[in-house]
């Protein structure tokens, strides 16, 4: 079980032209900015090579590529180096922007593309489950967020109301 090997495999897949770009999100992405928290899978957001006018994008080339490298499917996951990896298409403007603004972080000798802390926090706010709110609190308490940048993302993606609710619920002394 080796998450660094997952990153190496994804980089190679990008170098081989299967995907146009990627960024790590979810808990593993958050680990690049925060303390490690136990997780069971890896969320990889991918941009596919897509010719204008071609058929809708399919993740099949990813599965075919990885199957040829001894990775197998487990439900919606692909098992890579012992980790279940979920490949996610860009589902809206926020994650599209997050992928475009992703940063490169060296993991030893290997570069990894990762969402910024501000985008991960905004995505957590948007998704809004209890564990996402807990993660957003982690980001806030850790002090890693650039507040201006985060607020700009919140405003740009129509999350101001959600943020105000969150702030009332978790950041103020009075409900």
């Amino acid at each position, binding site marked *: 079980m080796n998450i660094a090997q997952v990153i190496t495999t994804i980089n190679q897949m990008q170098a081989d032209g299967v995907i146009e770009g990627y960024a790590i999100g979810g808990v593993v992405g958050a680990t690049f900015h925060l303390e*490690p*928290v136990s997780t069971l899978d890896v969320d990889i957001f991918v941009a596919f090579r897509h010719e204008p006018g071609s058929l809708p994008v399919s993740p099949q080339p990813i599965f075919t590529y990885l199957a040829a490298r001894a990775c197998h499917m*487990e439900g919606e996951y692909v098992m890579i180096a012992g980790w*279940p990896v979920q490949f996610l298409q860009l*589902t809206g403007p926020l994650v599209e922007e997050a992928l475009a603004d992703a940063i490169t972080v060296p*993991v030893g000798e290997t570069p990894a593309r990762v969402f910024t802390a501000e985008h991960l926090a905004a995505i957590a706010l948007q*998704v809004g489950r209890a564990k996402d709110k807990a993660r957003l609190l982690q980001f806030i308490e850790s002090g890693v967020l650039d507040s201006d940048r985060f607020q700009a993302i919140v405003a740009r993606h129509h999350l101001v109301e959600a943020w105000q609710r969150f702030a009332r619920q978790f950041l103020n002394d009075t409900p």
Partner: protein
Amino acid sequence: MTFDLQQILASKRAFRHALAARDIVEKLALLDELRARTLTLRPAQKSGRDSQTLREEPTPYRVDTKSNPS
């Protein structure tokens, strides 16, 4: 050792900051270990469905922010 709650909370914050400040290689190795531990501790599955993978509920990443009140 102390029973002062504020001191305990401050100590926990400091520990979390120290963990967060570790090298990313070390932090990812910790994720490997945490997952291995979770798999070791999980209860034996009675059903034969998907033998090896313990799953989380997939994150419902949203498409349209305006139509999703949270």
